[in-house]
């Protein structure tokens, strides 16, 4: 049997969850023996060329590009996992969710005291992704199959979850593994 294929992406996240994957230390060597990484910032593969077994999503959806990426992952991954608080509930970026997007943009690019008066404009290049009205948890946009909470989820949780997913076994969550901070 060929090795299970994993893809990862960071949407509106800080890459902390990806860092946590690296935190499994030397077990990453075991992991590489066990699985094949496909589209992921870890190996810099940018496009899907095959269907993956597991997709790991860090970050929620804060702009149109995040939505596109997430939908692409959903299409190309058999099992899709929300990894970390931002993917699960929007996290830090979602602190803007109670504020109208217009006010956010104006505060960030026009009124904020640290903005250079010469640069006072809201970015509007058509190439730029469009900001959403709020940050959406991934499972409100596409179907998500599993959730790994934490900020970031501990290396231990990620390791156990990956092993469980790859081996198709139920995930045994001990008390110390489920943490939101």
């Amino acid at each position, binding site marked *: 049997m060929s090795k299970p294929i994993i893809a990862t992406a960071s949407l509106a996240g800080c890459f902390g969850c990806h860092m946590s994957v690296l935190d499994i230390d030397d077990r990453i060597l075991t992991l590489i023996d066990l699985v094949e990484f496909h589209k992921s910032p870890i190996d810099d593969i940018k496009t899907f060329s095959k269907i993956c077994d597991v997709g790991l999503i860090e970050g929620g959806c804060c702009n149109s590009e995040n939505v596109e990426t997430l939908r692409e992952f959903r299409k190309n991954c058999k099992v899709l996992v929300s990894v970390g608080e931002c993917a699960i509930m929007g996290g830090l970026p979602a602190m803007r969710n109670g504020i109208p997007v217009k006010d956010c943009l104006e505060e960030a690019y026009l009124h904020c005291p640290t903005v250079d008066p010469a640069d006072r404009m809201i970015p509007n290049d058509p190439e730029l992704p469009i900001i959403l009205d709020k940050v959406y948890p991934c499972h409100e946009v596409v179907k998500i199959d599993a*959730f790994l909470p934490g*900020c970031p989820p501990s290396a231990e949780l990620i390791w156990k979850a990956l092993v469980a997913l790859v081996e198709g076994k139920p995930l045994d969550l001990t008390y110390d593994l*489920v943490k939101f901070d």
Partner: protein
Amino acid sequence: MSKIKFTVDGKACIGTPGQTIMEAALANGVYIPALCRYEGLKPAGSCRICTVRVGGRPMAACTQPVSEGMAVENMSQELEDMRKALVEMLFVEGNHMCPTCEKSGNCELQALAYRYQMLVPRFPYQFPARSVEPTGGRLLFEYNRCIQCLRCVRSVKTKDGKAVFGPLGRSEKKKIGMDKELASKLSDKDAREAMDRCPVGALLKKEVGFVIPIGKRKFDKTPIGSDVGKTAS
């Protein structure tokens, strides 16, 4: 004093007249999950997490008096799932950004979520627009995190007995009001106690934070309720 015989999930327990199911259960080393309850305060029955069944009827253990012959159903799968649902409701009702919260690790709402291994709430996040009220003297009120347990309403009073906090409005718009004038007169000790009583990170004492690092806090290693029954025979 006369004794009351009752059972919790089949375990024989002894209570005394005047005790609630909660008090009697705790005295017998039996943990009933709870959130708005606070030792020494009049029970409010607002979170409903301590709901148990007696003769099939649901009732809040924190307010219901224990009585002779009661067969209390506590840890059934059905009740535990409903309790978990209540925890999830409170998570989606407010904006609980655990990673940014001073109370993370000491938070009782979070601790219950850990206990129930809540990976994601079954309900959609509401993302309500809420504010932070910074002008309460030594206290600040982080409304994003308030779960309306009424602990502050029940306990924080001025010397002459006036309420510093009280419920305002009703329905989903209900919130806890703070009399800023009275709050600003609270002593350092009062403010500290108010913060400690708050089960979440809604009432915070200013100018202190993250004294104990994340990972070494109350519920980081030990599930909520673990202390119950430790001292009982």
